């Protein structure tokens, strides 16, 4: 077997394990929470009166929440393998249907935020390495720490205040169309851009001080050409690895951002499902999110050898300089 497929196979097995572990941990964690989700649903609907134990037991059985816990787990796992997560306790809708509505919206948001993060982060890193004045350089280098420190719910509210209420450029509810995507994507992109900017800026700084950079400069190439034509590609590996982490951040951040902008999606679904202990929905969303997370990381792992031949030849990541 050639090294590349073996490397691939190992990564793939890891990915499957991560998804299974996410499923199992969620199942256990939700079962450990106090409270009965079915009682919660029935009580929530009562006009001030609580449901009787008989009603709770009957509805629990209808939803498959009876029998030993191990049996329930195996039933849920078998269903999940077939893409069937059961039905939501609260709404009675099939979970797969809810996800098929919510997933494209969150993917849209996540992809837009990720793209914005990369563009803004790269621009920041390039600028920080091009600026000659020490003061300007220092200022640009501090931008990431400031940006990371701003909580996204606050950023979201500020953007709404400015762009929805004052300038009336974008809607404050991020439900509809492209215009509704702009503010949520910007909010979600800021910490990611900061992270990319910081890592890439450091790595560029190191790369531009290597002997080969001096060699290129000696041929008379401008600093911009050294940076964009040669430095960026060599400095990109750590930043691209960061993208894998960013995917996780974007998935988590969507919970806050979708709430602030009341944008329907996976984040809203899981927020509501967790507060009402809607186990099938939590389970479904967690599995889909973990699949997305491992898929992006797998893609990053596959991309690195393409960019850096040193990883390709050994099947391992090159030691960072």
């Amino acid at each position: 077997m050639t090294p590349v497929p073996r490397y691939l196979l190992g990564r793939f097995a890891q990915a499957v394990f991560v998804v299974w572990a996410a499923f199992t941990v969620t199942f256990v964690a939700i079962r450990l929470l106090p409270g009965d989700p079915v009682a919660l649903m029935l009580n929530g609907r009562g006009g001030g009166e609580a449901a009787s134990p008989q009603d709770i037991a009957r509805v629990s059985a209808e939803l498959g929440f009876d029998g030993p816990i191990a049996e329930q787990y195996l039933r849920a796992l078998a269903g999940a393998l077939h893409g069937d997560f059961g039905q939501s306790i609260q709404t009675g809708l099939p979970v797969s249907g809810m996800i098929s509505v919510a997933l494209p919206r969150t993917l849209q948001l996540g992809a837009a935020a990720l793209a914005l993060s990369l563009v803004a982060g790269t621009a920041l890193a390039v600028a920080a390495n091009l600026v000659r004045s020490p003061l300007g350089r220092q200022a640009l280098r501090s931008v990431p720490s400031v940006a990371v420190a701003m909580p996204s719910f606050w950023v979201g509210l500020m953007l709404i205040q400015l762009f929805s209420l004052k300038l009336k450029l974008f809607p404050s509810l991020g439900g509809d169309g492209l215009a509704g995507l702009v503010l949520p994507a910007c909010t979600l992109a800021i910490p990611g851009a900061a992270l990319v900017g910081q890592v890439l800026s450091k790595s560029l700084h190191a790369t531009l001080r290597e002997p080969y950079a001096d060699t290129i400069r000696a041929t008379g190439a401008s600093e911009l050409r050294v940076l964009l034509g040669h430095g960026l590609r060599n400095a990109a590996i750590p930043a691209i690895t960061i993208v894998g982490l960013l995917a996780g951040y974007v998935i988590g951040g969507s919970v806050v951002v979708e709430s602030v902008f009341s944008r329907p999606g996976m984040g809203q679904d899981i927020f509501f499902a967790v507060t009402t202990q809607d186990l099938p929905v939590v389970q479904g969303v967690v599995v889909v999110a973990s699949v997305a997370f491992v898929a992006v990381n797998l893609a990053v792992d596959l991309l690195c050898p393409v960019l850096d031949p040193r990883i390709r030849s050994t099947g391992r990541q090159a030691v960072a300089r």
Partner: protein
Amino acid sequence: MRTARILGTALVLAAVAACSPSQATTGGTLSIATQADPTCLDPQQTGQLVSMDVSRSLVDTLTDQDPKTGKIVPWLAEQFTALDGGRKFKFVLRQGVTFSDGTPVDSAAVKATFDQLVKLPANGAPAYIRGYTGTTVIDPRTFTVDFTTPNAQFLQATSGAGLGILSTATAKKPLAARCRGDYVGSGPYVLDHYTANQEVVIKKRPDYAWPSSLSANRGAAALEQIRFAFVPEDGARTTALRSGQVQLATAIQPTDQDLFQGNGFSLLSASSPGAVNPLSLNHKGILADERVRKALLTGIDREELVKAVLGSRAKPATSVLSSSTPFYQPTDKLRYDPQASGRLLSEAGWAPGSDGIRVKDGQRLSLNWLIPAPMPPANEAVQQQLRKIGVELKLNAVPPAKYVEQQSAGNFDLTAVAVTRADPDVLRNLFYSKGQNLWHLPPSRLDSYLEQQLTAGSDAERQQAVTNAVHWIIDHADSIPLYENALVDGVSDQVKDLTLDASLRLRLHDARLG
């Protein structure tokens, strides 16, 4: 600028006047930001207010209730009478009414609706027909509904969406499907779609012609469709209304209400009928002592509470029932008197301790207030007020799931449960010791008062029973009434003729965009 606007308004007025007055603007989509996903649209299965705002427009009811007088008036039933001392109710349906699937609204459909309702978990609308023995169809338009014992609250219940009339075929549908909106009513709107965690869209039924006798619009709805977007964040609803993305936002917080007085907006507001917002007292533990309960009753400064945190729309409680509830009579027993509280607590053996909190046999006078998160700001104000009489409240905010569990298990001294319904029978939901009795009231004469108000043969008799019950509850401090809550929605001036029904649900049949 100002002149231009006035001129513009004048032109619009002139244009409107030129049209025939009954045929004002029609069409358009009304967008509403509501505070939660209703999760279930079936009025028989849920009593949640956000859900009733939608289902109210999809189903018609036998009767309607006049929000001003509390009187029950005709809707689908053109005649209704109580017989046999309130054990039997006879209805005559109006002619020519159809469900949205084309089948007629007849006695058989009413029978199927109630026969199904009585089988459901008895914690929402089904509780209103407890003791139901059946519906007897006399002819397609005439029927009687029978009960084992007199049921004085039944006629009021027939005006609520919970007892809305559904098609015969609906009764056979699975409950989960009905929650998603798969049911058929005869209302002015029909469901277009319901997407969980996102929106419900309803559209008008063009051939609708049988509105409530209270409705100004006698024909089909003016609006083409209505979109309810679920916006749980208070701030996001406010912003959506201000930026013009929606024309109505529900549950505007006291801090934001001033934004919508003028500036092209107004507040649609009404005092919630039913049981007022109280401190609900667990009659086990420290609060088993009536003197301590009475000390809490006089230890609350209701005027101050309303002024400081609740805003001008709320009102200090003057009874266990709110002033907009039928059979409400004010009492003068809810006075602020901290000296009296001090005396009562000393009598009960609670002496002032070193840090101001009273103690008895080494035990602090500390009460556990179980609160479903997020905690409303009024709770802290109550905590501060009672601290002044030497009572410590531990604010125990827990996730809603845990709240329900802990409340059922009785692990609390205080909760705060109000019930919105325009009928004094809400007292029976809360204080009947033979009912669910979450607050562990001992059996007493109160039980018979609550039974009497249900079985009363006349309004005078019912009034007497309600008054007796209210005074008993206050005299024994079985609950500490705090304030009358108000529903406050923000509405753009583009929306015309939008009103609330007696249960404070939106009456969207009359509404239009101008």
